């Protein structure tokens, strides 16, 4: 880690923070309140065409021929393209580029993109799509991941070295055999995590314009502008410098807008062909096909524990259903094992994770990428082990807390750690000690914990350049503008940048603008994923501010003919610390600096230190800082109907330092909601023909304000040594414990262990009946 990346954790220019820690409004909040904010589908360009896709009706088939002549003859149709027009493969991970914008040779799931039409309006484009004739040769389809593990002909990706295996990772640390031999209790069980999807309320949309000089501008609802620029320019054969990618205001993402998507390539290509702007807006149904949601996983966990509560070892075997393409799957496969090694200390660990291809919509990263599923399994098993040794489940979690400034069993460096305080907080707020195990039948409390990354030092494509870059422009008007490649996806990243500028330069928030996620204007930033933004963009912003401040202070000191150390800037006014009556406004200081240095500006950057275990894959999951979370869930279970009523979630999260507590709480609540409702309401699946079981927000129900429990955000601050003022992530970590804590609460309520998601009324009733039968049997036996 370079010196430029360490900035201290306290208030920079005095005893107290001015802006950090305040629940300021969001920078773009009012534009959203009034309907003024421009999202991708709000963009209307003169002469704009509308594009639509033909999608595959088969789960797995070879394309024999495509005839577009009838469609092309339709009045109002301007262009039609197929896979032959965009033959270059892409994929977000450089080693697994296995996607085409439009199918080349074969289709791999129902909904795979086959051809695209640009027409005068959407109706005409839809009519033309229906006129395209495609002949398919249907192939054997794979819907069961267990079949893909063993059967490789026909291969879903014929070029793939390992048949239908997408990725396998096997890692072992320590000695499992003696770990289990030394345990007092060993449990081995199976867990099933269903699939779930992001369902951001804004459907994907992209608009492209090609200007006469060959420059292409692409507006897209993406959360990673940089990767879209890299992949779209490569597939189109354009130099990156000729493709400008802009992320307009984004209507939610949650990981579901982190891959480059077919529509981005297609609108850019169609704009180049037609010479007219082209828009494509996906229907809600299409968003379900595009998916990239949470991978279904079948997990076997074996864990050993001693009577004193200490864990001796953990072994996991995981089958991951990847769907039809690789997406981020290489990382998912590593994360499914690599991210389980905290917040608990266990000296022995082995995992064997295999991701397979199936003929279903492709899975990818969803909030808590790859680690929500293992966490679900492990935290339930931990609850069962606690019961087996007769220890309170919170106490067991305390006993195993890995603590701070240490290393995990797989070699990840842990610095700050507020997990113990998270447990204290949920225990206190839920009145755990007086209520758990003592509530009436049907009501219960459950606990779970977790750890998550604040960015990772693995930058998707290996390079030595900064992961986050920012540029500042300042002038005599008193305005400071920050240009950041960081994607504000609603989580507040531009607001974080503004808070830091206010803190470092003594500015009023209204004197700060943030221009974000426009590749022509902003330095490269790797975008909004892996919970990296606050940590990395925040540190880059501090870096840029300190350089700028130095210039300003130097100019003022020269003007006042005093030592620069005497010039204070940081509270809206600039003064001589030894002669307080010598003072000017910040704006006047900018004027002096502009005269002294000429036009002002600065850049800032952040890169991670070298991190990770010394083995292949050891850097995947290595983060400069980890966040910690604990949940207690309160639930009511109706034993007659099997209905689950979610009452309360207490979510305590160690976010390092809360730069804006209100925004941190919003992330914690949003995460807790997303996790707990996916356990009860959601199930992303296909039927036996591979057809999506219900690609609508009615058939894939999202929880309403009435279904969502009361969420109680409890912020814990551990002050991370390397985070910006000590901050860490808050956008994904707080999701993880929700699902297992719910399962554990259901056990407390009615005595059934649910190890398979989702928790439908049918599953609850079946488990209740099985329990009743067992109770009867044991009772009968004892009579």
């Amino acid at each position, binding site marked *: 880690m370079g010196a430029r990346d360490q900035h201290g954790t306290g208030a920079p220019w005095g005893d107290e923070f001015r802006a950090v820690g305040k629940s300021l409004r969001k920078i773009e909040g009012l534009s*959203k*309140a009034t309907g003024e904010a421009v999202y991708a589908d709000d963009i209307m360009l003169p002469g704009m065409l509308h594009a639509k896709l033909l999608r595959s009706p088969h789960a797995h088939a070879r394309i024999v021929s495509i005839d577009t002549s009838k469609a092309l003859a339709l009045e109002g149709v301007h262009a039609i393209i197929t896979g032959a027009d965009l033959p270059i493969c892409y994929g977000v991970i450089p080693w697994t580029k296995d996607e085409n914008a439009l199918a080349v040779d074969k289709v791999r799931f129902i909904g795979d993109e086959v051809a695209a039409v640009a027409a005068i309006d959407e109706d005409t484009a839809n009519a033309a799509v229906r006129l395209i004739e495609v002949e398919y040769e249907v192939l054997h389809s794979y819907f069961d991941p267990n079949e893909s593990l063993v059967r490789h002909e026909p291969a879903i990706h014929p070029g793939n070295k390992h048949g239908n295996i997408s990725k396998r990772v096997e890692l072992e640390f320590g000695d499992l055999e003696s770990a289990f031999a030394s345990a007092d209790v060993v449990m081995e069980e199976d867990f099933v995590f269903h699939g779930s999807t992001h369902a951001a309320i804004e459907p994907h949309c992209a608009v492209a314009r090609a200007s006469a000089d060959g420059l292409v501008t692409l507006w897209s609802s993406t959360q990673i502008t940089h990767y879209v620029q890299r992949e779209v320019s490569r597939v189109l054969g354009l130099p990156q410098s000729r493709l400008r990618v802009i992320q307009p205001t984004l209507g939610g*993402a949650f990981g579901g807008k982190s891959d480059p998507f077919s529509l981005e390539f297609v609108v850019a290509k169609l704009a180049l062909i037609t010479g007219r702007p082209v828009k494509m807006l996906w229907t809600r149904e299409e968003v379900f096909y595009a998916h990239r949601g949470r991978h279904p996983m079948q997990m076997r966990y074996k864990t050993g524990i001693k009577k004193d509560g200490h864990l001796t070892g953990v072994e996991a075997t995981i089958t991951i259903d990847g769907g039809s393409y690789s997406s981020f799957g290489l990382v998912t496969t590593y994360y499914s094992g690599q991210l389980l090694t905290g917040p608990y200390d266990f000296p022995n660990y082995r995992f064997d994770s295999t991701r397979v291809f199936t003929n279903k919509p492709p899975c990818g990263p969803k909030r808590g990428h790859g680690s929500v599923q293992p966490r679900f399994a492990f935290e339930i098993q931990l609850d069962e082990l606690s019961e087996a040794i007769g220890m309170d489940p919170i106490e067991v979690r305390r006993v195993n807390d890995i603590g701070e400034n240490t290393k995990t069993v797989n070699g990840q460096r842990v610095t700050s750690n507020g997990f113990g305080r998270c447990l204290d907080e949920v225990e206190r707020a839920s009145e755990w000690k007086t209520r758990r195990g003592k509530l009436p039948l049907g009501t219960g409390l459950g606990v779970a914990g977790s750890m998550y990354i604040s960015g990772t030092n693995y930058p998707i494509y290996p390079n030595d350049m900064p992961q986050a870059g920012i540029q500042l422009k300042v002038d005599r008007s008193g305005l400071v503008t920050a240009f950041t490649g960081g994607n504000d996806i*609603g989580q507040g990243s531009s607001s974080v940048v503004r808070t830091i500028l206010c803190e470092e330069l003594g500015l*009023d928030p209204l004197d700060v603008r943030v221009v974000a996620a426009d590749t022509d204007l902003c330095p490269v930033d790797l975008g909004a994923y892996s919970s990296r933004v606050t940590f990395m963009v925040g540190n880059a912003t501090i870096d840029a501010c300190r350089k700028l401040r130095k210039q300003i202070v130097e100019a003022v000191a020269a003007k006042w003919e005093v030592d620069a150390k005497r010039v204070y800037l940081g509270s809206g006014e600039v003064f001589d610390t030894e002669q307080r009556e010598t003072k000017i406004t910040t704006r006047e200081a900018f004027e002096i600096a502009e005269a002294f240095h000429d036009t002002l500006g600065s850049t800032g950057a952040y890169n991670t230190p070298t991190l990770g275990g010394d083995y292949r894959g050891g850097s995947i999951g290595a983060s400069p800082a980890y966040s910690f979370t604990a949940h207690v869930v309160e639930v009511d279970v109706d034993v007659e109907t099997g209905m689950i009523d979610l009452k309360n979630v207490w979510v305590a999260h160690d976010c390092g330092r809360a730069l804006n507590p209100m925004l941190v709480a919003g992330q914690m609540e949003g995460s807790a909601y997303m996790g707990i409702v996916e356990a009860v309401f959601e199930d992303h699946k296909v039927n036996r023909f591979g057809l999506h079981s219900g690609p609508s927000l009615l058939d894939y129900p*999202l929880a309403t304000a009435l279904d969502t429990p009361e969420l109680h955000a409890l912020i814990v601050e551990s002050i991370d040594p390397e985070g910006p003022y000590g901050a860490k992530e808050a956008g994904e970590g707080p999701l993880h414990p929700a699902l297992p804590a719910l399962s554990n609460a259901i056990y407390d309520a009615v005595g059934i262990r649910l190890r398979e998601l989702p928790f439908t009324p049918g599953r609850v009733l079946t488990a209740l009946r099985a329990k009743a039968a067992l109770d009867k049997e044991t009772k009968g036996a004892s009579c």
Partner: protein
Amino acid sequence: MLAMSTPISLELSINDDRVRASVPAHWTLLELLRYELGLTGTKQGCDKGDCGACTVLIDGKPQLSCLILAANAEGKKVQTIEGLQPAHRKAGGVGLDPVQDAFDRCGALQCGFCQSGMMLSARALLNENPTPDRTEIRQALSGNLCRCTGYTQIVQAVELAIAESTGAEPESPSWSDGNPWKSTTSLSGKNGGDA
């Protein structure tokens, strides 16, 4: 198809303006607002009545504009998110409609995509019942899906708007000892909403 696009001429009342438009007969009110009138504050999340993002007020009642043909909005008063602040100003108010201001101050506007509809549902509720309790608030907003917030800061925003209209002290959120929503945009204490 072009043939489907036979236009019809409509005369509507949108945000208190009399508006004339000519759109294809099968267009919904949502399409008319967004793609003909440029009132893009009304959002489309599903186009089939499942999400609530397209909610507008028709004669004061929250309705899904994706399920209403543009032609069927004739003779009715349509209010969109763009009309909320101007209506508040016309009625002698300053700044934003208190619902909009409270949503912003409470952090409810994460991605914001659901929020035009959400704020209009909240506005309609408060017009009908100025002091609803939490269950009534949740009920009134249950037709508007939000994927970002978990609804907590939305409910807090509505409760803050109610508290401020009655002069009561709002209930503190779990993450703050006092009322954290007093501080706004300006570090010197000015209300950014009035800026």
